[in-house]
């Protein structure tokens, strides 16, 4: 009894628990914030600093390079670079194809899996999740071979049907890389959406059926609106992930000349740092990518919270 009385007083002081104080909390938080500072904060600050400076050689280009403050000049140069702007446009196009295909595919598959007549749900879940256990590098490698004439059963089968497609030419290579992304991420999101569907209250669906709504009608007008919150989180992570596009194009670039060394912004930044040795521009490009991610994720969060309210 005495203990209980004590507990309530403790709780009334505002959930202060075991040891409470800032010092205990610090013990638990310091390791994380130490690595966070090294791996997140310091790089962002350092690249901000770098992006406002430039290496300039004096006179005829002999002697030590000097670091000079140049303000926004690096950003201006990055945006004036034709290849960077093309990369951004390509990434935009990639998003426009990839996001509807992947998210739409995931929603469709999850709804099918949740249909009353679906069989062997667990097996399908496992199979559909399989690609996520395949690292991005390996996924890109597998598909690179599946796109290569002579080795690929896919190209062979299409040729057998009289269709000649070069998956790696300059027109097809973007959709071909989209397909790798779709293959890698659809199943992952199917599992998220399917679990969200499982939480849809059964009474609602039962009531709809009594009112004469068929399976498809129920899926579109009842289930789909109820998984919108899960869908908005998926959109958020998909956009952040898509902006990072690097692994797949850099693997595919070895199989075809259609993917250039500056194909997407991340490749551009890599190229700037290690091929052109212009670290300041590379830093500016990194900041632009991070800024783009921040703006887009803010937009998605705003939009989805407005949608959830209404």
């Amino acid at each position, binding site marked *: 009894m005495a203990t209980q009385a004590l507990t309530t007083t403790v709780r009334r002081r505002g959930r202060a628990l075991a040891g409470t104080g800032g010092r205990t909390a610090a013990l638990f*938080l310091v390791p*994380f914030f130490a690595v966070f500072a090294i791996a997140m904060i310091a790089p962002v600050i350092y690249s901000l600093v770098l992006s406002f400076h430039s290496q300039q050689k004096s006179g005829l280009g002999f002697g030590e390079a000097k670091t000079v403050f140049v303000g926004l000049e690096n950003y201006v140069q990055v945006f004036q670079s034709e290849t960077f702007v093309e990369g951004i446009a390509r990434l935009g196009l990639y998003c426009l194809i990839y996001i509807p295909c992947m998210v739409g595919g995931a929603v469709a598959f999850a709804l*099918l899996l949740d249909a009353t007549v679906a069989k062997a749900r667990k097996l399908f879940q496992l199979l559909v999740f399989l690609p996520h256990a395949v690292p991005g590098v390996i996924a890109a490698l597998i598909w690179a071979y599946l796109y290569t004439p002579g080795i690929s059963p896919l190209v062979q089968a299409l040729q057998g049907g009289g269709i000649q497609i070069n998956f790696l030419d300059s027109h097809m290579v973007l959709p071909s890389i989209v397909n790798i992304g779709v293959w890698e991420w659809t199943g992952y999101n199917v*599992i*998220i959406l399917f679990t969200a569907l499982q939480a849809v209250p059964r009474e609602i669906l039962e009531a709809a059926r009594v009112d004469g709504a068929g399976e498809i009608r129920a899926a579109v007008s009842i289930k789909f609106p109820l998984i919108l919150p899960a869908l908005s989180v998926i959109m958020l992570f998909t956009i952040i992930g898509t902006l990072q596009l690097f*692994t797949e194009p850099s693997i595919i670039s070895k199989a075809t000349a259609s993917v250039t060394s500056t194909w997407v912004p991340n490749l551009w930044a890599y190229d700037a740092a290690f091929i052109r040795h212009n670290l300041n521009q590379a830093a500016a490009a990194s900041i632009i990518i991070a800024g783009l991610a921040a703006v887009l994720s803010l937009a998605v969060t705003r939009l989805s919270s407005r949608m959830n309210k209404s």
Partner: protein
Amino acid sequence: MSASTLPRPRTTPDTATPRRTGSRSNRTGPSSNRGGGFASKLTVNGLLIIGSAYMVVPVLWLVFASTKNAADLYGTSAYALGNFSLFENIANVAKQDGGLFFRWLGNSVMYAGVGAVLGSLISVMAGYAFDKFQFRWKDSLFGFVLVGVLIPNTATVLPMYLLASLVGMTNTIWAVLIPVLCNPFGVYLARVYSASYVPAETLEAARMDGAGPIRSFFSLGLPMMMPGYITIALFQFVGVWNNFMLPLVMLQDQKLLPVSVGISIWQGYSVPQPEFTPMVITGSLLSIIPLLVAFIMLQRFWKSGLTTGSVK
């Protein structure tokens, strides 16, 4: 099965809406047969089979392709067995550069293992503190963590390389190991797990008995959060195993590379030298087997992890 292990927010059972947790049993009973005729059953399951085939066939191709030598790879039909050369291919992979491939595999296990075990512990401790302790600037610190979730990893890789070269740490294992310990999303997940798995009352009781906060974390909190810890560790393991850009940028010494970067180097060789192709394919297969096994064995954990991360 999957749904019942989910760490949902604690709602008292009597007020919670009845959920379709065991959906199979109560939805495929005799009463629901009205819902689907033979045609719809065929359509739904047919589409599911087509979708799953799209997911599985590329991996199957990898399995078949790894049993072929270079000549059969280009010569025979993709899903036919040529001369069965799997073991020969594995032997070639093992021989190349004095067993370098297995060194890569070992490095991947080391990077991903340390990242998963230690990195998740760091995240779990922080998430636990955010849930259970009161301290100043709690909300703004947590806000920082959430911003960290949103910063694309690849945007920090190049600056991190530059920082590492300032202190002379590039081309060491630390250049990969330290960054992979940072998992802001793990902190977010851990906070959720701590709220749903560790009752405040238990910790209070421990305090009454004289246990300090650190002791009660390691002897009570952490064991109670173990399923959450394993989930976070599993995802971190996969994340580090799949990481490509960070080791690519940081490491030059081939002996330090993880298998993802190593294989991509072989792929580069295979363009002028096609005899490398079977080794790239067999190496790819060997490198995904550990992950496939982990995923199949730990199904319960990744399912619960995916749900906590997004449905909440």
